[in-house]
């Protein structure tokens, strides 16, 4: 069995990388090879979760260290989530990618391969190499379609800047491991002062990849992810951020039980990210920007669950710790699968309508492919936490974990739990607004009866399959939790009184217990309830219940609304939020005039618009940072390199002297 699993992993990695040269034969062949490789990785991950970890390959690396490629339960869990998304994305790309040449397919395959190696790496050096490979391949994927110019190209460089910052911090944290243990293998660190530095570097470094606050907003995640081609966005948003989650979980699994403030920091960052992500998602009109902000929100939720777990662990609350960890894992899984599907759906929107503006899409998408529309609907509903989908179960678990923050010891921790709970609850509500907006204005709302453009064969099936996974994960959540218990156990192996599964009484049959005793949820019973409720509603409808809706035109100050004006816009949908939460969003009115003098413009409001602009406070910070950095380097240049030969000769002399002194002292 072990040999079989090792063979599966080797074959998966080889196949994933084989897709890079395969693009020479044609991009479709390359995507098909990626699909096969992902399927093999999925099989290997399932084998690990069922029957235990293994090492596939062992060799001596360039620095004399022992390199291993293999999967343990923790990495298998993340490989499984990623492989499911990749299968969908590869199958989708076969029909989606119509760009000439195989450039995008090459970058796509390289990204997949790098992330797979990242999961399989049993050594921090290989991990770092894969991390950097993943960053570069993702950068390639983003700029591949941009034609080397324009905003997408520069967004790619923003992505690269943050990505390299992330690599730097991850490398620092790896250096901390080396300092503590003397080797690069992934072994436990037990000394706390060292581990605090490692923890902080890892949190910020991996947090950069996850796109959480304050490294998130307006800049790299929403812009870079949403300006890439849609299959690339899917891989980036669902699995690149997942790689960040994996890195953080891996590092935490190797650290000792930390002080309470570790968990408090994670909890605070997570809650702020969730709130800001949901807030900006709900006021976004960009078909891809909206899910990208939602990614920030969901990664924030993962951090919230992790933060609750860490605080609980530090304070010895083992049951809450186990439940919050399960919540974090489940949320990561639910987000990856649903977000992969949602970004593929945006590719479908792009394919059908050729625009990313929700105000322009207007329901034309439904005439494209029914399967793709269903996939978009199901995945968006999952993010809106509609039962019985995966997102619902994940968010229920996180809220349940937060409800139990009253168990925290000390008023400060309790108060933090309270604030985080309020922020998370608000962000879940805002996420519903965002998702209703996305689905409503792309699928359900077709006021202009716009005719449908291109048919889209081949885009529906992968999306429908992914949405099936989302439903299955939600309905079968109790069994999924039992299935991933080895991975959770792997993260939490240090000195618990019992394995995490036993702490939660897994397997619990048809339901999930959130503590002993606290809440209970039975995901499989939810669809039954929904079916019964639908029957009642159907009966009421058939018996003549319900009332015909009265349709009236929209009120635009008494003017006759134009066909476009006469319909509800995506912008108008969330203007209430723009105004009510203006202090958080920095909303301000901007007057735009498309011509003529003001008096004329007021008389004909069509050419005189008052728009509401929102602003991210963090963007101001980054803008100042960039300006300050430029000014500093300019001043430094003027001081160090004024163009005088004498000064350059002095530099050479000083360098020689310093080297001589150093050699003398060392010798």
């Amino acid at each position, binding site marked *: 069995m072990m040999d079989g699993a090792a063979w599966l992993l080797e074959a998966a990695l080889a196949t994933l990388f084989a897709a890079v040269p395969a693009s020479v034969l044609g991009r479709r062949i390359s995507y098909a090879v990626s699909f096969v490789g992902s399927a093999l990785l999925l099989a290997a991950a399932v084998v690990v979760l069922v029957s235990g970890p293994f090492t596939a390959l062992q060799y001596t690396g360039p620095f004399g260290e022992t390199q291993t490629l293999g999967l343990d339960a923790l990495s298998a869990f993340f490989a499984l989530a990623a492989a499911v998304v990749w299968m969908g994305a590869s199958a989708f790309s076969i029909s989606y990618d119509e760009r000439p040449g195989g450039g995008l397919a090459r970058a796509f395959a390289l990204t997949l391969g790098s992330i797979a190696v990242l999961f399989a790496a049993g050594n921090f050096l290989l991990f770092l190499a894969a991390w950097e490979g993943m960053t570069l391949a993702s950068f390639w994927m983003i700029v591949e379609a941009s034609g080397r110019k324009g905003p997408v190209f520069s967004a790619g460089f923003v992505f690269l800047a943050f990505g390299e910052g992330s690599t730097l911090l991850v490398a620092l944290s790896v250096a901390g491991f080396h300092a503590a243990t003397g080797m690069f293998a992934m072994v436990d660190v037990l000394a706390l002062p060292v581990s605090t530095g490692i923890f902080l570097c890892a949190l910020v470094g991996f947090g950069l990849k996850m796109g959480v606050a304050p490294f998130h907003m307006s800049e790299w995640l929403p812009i870079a992810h949403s300006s890439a081609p849609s299959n690339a966005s899917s891989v980036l948003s669902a699995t690149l951020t997942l790689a960040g989650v994996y890195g953080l979980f891996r590092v935490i699994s190797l650290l000792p039980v930390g002080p309470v403030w570790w968990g408090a920091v994670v909890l605070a960052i997570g809650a702020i990210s969730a709130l800001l992500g949901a807030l900006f998602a709900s006021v976004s009109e960009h078909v891809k920007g909206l899910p990208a902000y939602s990614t920030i929100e969901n990664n924030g939720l993962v951090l919230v669950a992790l933060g609750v777990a860490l605080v609980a662990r530090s304070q010895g609350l083992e049951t809450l710790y186990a439940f919050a960890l399960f919540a974090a894992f489940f949320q990561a899984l639910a987000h990856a699968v649903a977000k992969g599907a949602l970004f593929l759906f945006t590719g479908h929107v792009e394919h059908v309508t050729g625009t990313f503006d929700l105000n322009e899409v207007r329901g034309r998408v439904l005439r494209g492919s029914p399967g793709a529309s269903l996939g978009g609907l199901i995945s968006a509903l999952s993010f809106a936490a509609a039962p019985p989908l995966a997102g619902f179960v994940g968010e229920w678990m996180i809220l349940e974990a937060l409800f139990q923050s009253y168990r925290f010891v000390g008023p400060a921790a309790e108060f933090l739990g309270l604030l985080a709970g309020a922020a998370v609850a608000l962000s879940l509500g805002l996420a519903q607004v965002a998702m209703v907006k996305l689905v409503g204005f792309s699928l359900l709302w077709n006021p202009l009866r716009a005719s449908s453009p291109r048919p889209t064969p081949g885009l529906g099936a992968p999306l429908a399959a992914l949405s099936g996974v989302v439903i299955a994960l939600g309905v079968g959540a109790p069994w999924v939790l039992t299935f991933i218990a080895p991975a959770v156990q792997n993260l939490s192996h240090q000195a618990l009184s019992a394995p995490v599964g036993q702490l939660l009484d897994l397997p619990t049959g048809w339901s999930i217990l959130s503590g002993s005793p606290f809440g209970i949820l039975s995901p499989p019973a939810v669809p039954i309830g929904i079916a019964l409720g639908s029957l009642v509603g159907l009966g009421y409808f058939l018996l003549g219940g319900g009332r015909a809706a*009265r349709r*009236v*035109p929209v*009120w635009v*100050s*008494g*003017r*006759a609304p134009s066909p476009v004006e006469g319909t509800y816009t995506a912008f108008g949908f969330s203007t209430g939020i723009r105004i009510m939460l203006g202090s958080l969003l920095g909303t301000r009115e901007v007057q735009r005039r498309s011509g003529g003098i003001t008096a004329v413009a007021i008389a004909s409001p069509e050419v005189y618009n008052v728009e509401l602009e929102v602003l991210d406070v963090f963007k101001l910070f980054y803008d100042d940072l960039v300006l300050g950095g430029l000014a500093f380097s300019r001043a430094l240049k003027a001081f160090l390199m004024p163009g005088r030969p004498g000064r350059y000769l002095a530099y050479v002399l000083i360098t020689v002297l310093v080297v001589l002194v150093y050699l003398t002292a060392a010798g």
Partner: protein
Amino acid sequence: MPSWIGQAIKRGILTSRFPRGPGSEDELPETSRPPVLSPTSDPLPTLTRATGDCPTGAIDPDGLHHGKCVRCARCTRKGFVFAGPAHPCADSREGLYAPGGGPLPEHRNASPLAPLGRSLQLFLVDAGSCLACNLEVLALANPYYDSSRLGITFVNSPHHADVLVVVGIPTDPLLGPLRRAYEALPGPKAVLAVGACALEGGIFRGNPGTRAPLSDTVPVDLFVPGCPPTPLDILQGVLTLAGRANRLPEVHP
């Protein structure tokens, strides 16, 4: 302590007790009451003499049309006095016609909004007024009349309103918006026409670019005459629409 708190305590409650008690209308001009034939004058000759003097044609030899009257007081020289019952209103244009120039009968029937009970939202449309009626309508929201104590508030969209309050003579550019606003009201709904211009056109009747009366454009449920009507006249009209006027004590300041 901020001075306004002390002042407020010193002054006491200034808000009108209307409709629970008399509104203090002592300082209103006498033209705030509808005109009636002076008890001392003989109806037929007086009406005939005043007919020619009335600038809006409110007076004819048979009677007085309160909807057309702009309270210009020219007829007081011919035997009329401003002493009719306060707060007149009617649910039809004919209901405002007083044969023989006597007082209008008390009108207490029209209450299409009775199911709405104690909360009414008003949407004000100025169809072409001189702004006098606007001032009087909006005075309902000031601290003295304070209509919100009766559950009556103003809203910014007809989608949220129960009552369309129309002031001014309907002008051509506003006919479309008027109809759209009426369409936009959710049911049950009512239209309250306020002031002589909205009722019959007032002194602008027949001018080019106007379309009096309002009831040709939208169905009107209640007419409140006056030029302009006082805020209490309008408040009484709104309460009548809601079926709340019957439950009130008789109001004769």
